[in-house]
């Protein structure tokens, strides 16, 4: 499909520039304003803004306005990936504790005096 071609073209074009890769690396450590991003590079703010537009169109970066400042962040996909990763571990540990409960309760003799707990 044409849309996939365009999306890929944009992504690769966006990644092909060293300044843009450096911007992505900076944003991977936390959100930043355009001013923050411009500081380490020997380029003007408008030039940084232009790079950001390319990154935005490629779906790699998002900009959110906070009053007069616009804050840049990596697109939510990476963050969603992280949340899913932690969710996988939540399932993993829930299953482990379930296995532990089954095993231990099957092999622990019940005290005869306290048998009010319903057996599951």
């Amino acid at each position: 499909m044409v849309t996939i071609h365009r999306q890929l073209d944009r992504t690769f074009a966006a990644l092909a520039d060293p300044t843009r890769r450096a911007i992505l690396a900076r944003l991977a450590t936390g959100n930043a304003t355009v001013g923050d991003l411009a500081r380490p590079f020997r380029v003007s703010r408008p030039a940084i803004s232009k790079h950001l537009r390319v990154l935005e169109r490629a779906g790699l970066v998002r900009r959110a306005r906070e009053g007069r400042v616009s804050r840049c962040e990596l697109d939510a996909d990476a963050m969603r990936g992280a949340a899913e990763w932690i969710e996988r571990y939540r399932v993993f540990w829930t299953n482990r504790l379930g296995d532990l409960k089954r095993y231990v309760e099957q092999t622990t003799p019940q005290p005869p005096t306290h048998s009010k707990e319903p057996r599951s």
Partner: protein
Amino acid sequence: MTSTATNSLQVSQTIRATRERLFRAWTDPDELMHWWRMDEEGWAFADASVDLKVGGRYQLGMTGPDGKTHRAVGVYREVDPPARLAFTWDWEDPAHRVGETLVTIEFNSVGEGMTEVILTHERFTDAARLGGHERGWTQLLKLLDRLVEEEST
């Protein structure tokens, strides 16, 4: 910035057993082999080694559906029987490294012969970032796959 809420997780389970018994179940290889089976989706217990002291290492091996053994490895940070156990958690295989995350297990007495087990897994910062990156690249490669497929038809 990622909030701390997404950098940790906590699960708990109330179990009809003493704290001593449960602490042993977590730290004795002969006990671990009975319940650390991961039998969902073809996973099985492979081996366990435990050097139960602060600074001591453990290994927990699991055989996956692919027949390969994957080992969780780490170092005990707190050994306080029967109340508390903490250890770092990572994978032996460099390809699956997640950075040094920390697992803490608390054993709380909640009545005659009943124990609440609370497990916290935290310090996911690096791991989560890895996971996110991995996913980003996976998506890009999938896209490339689709593109190549189209071009060859």
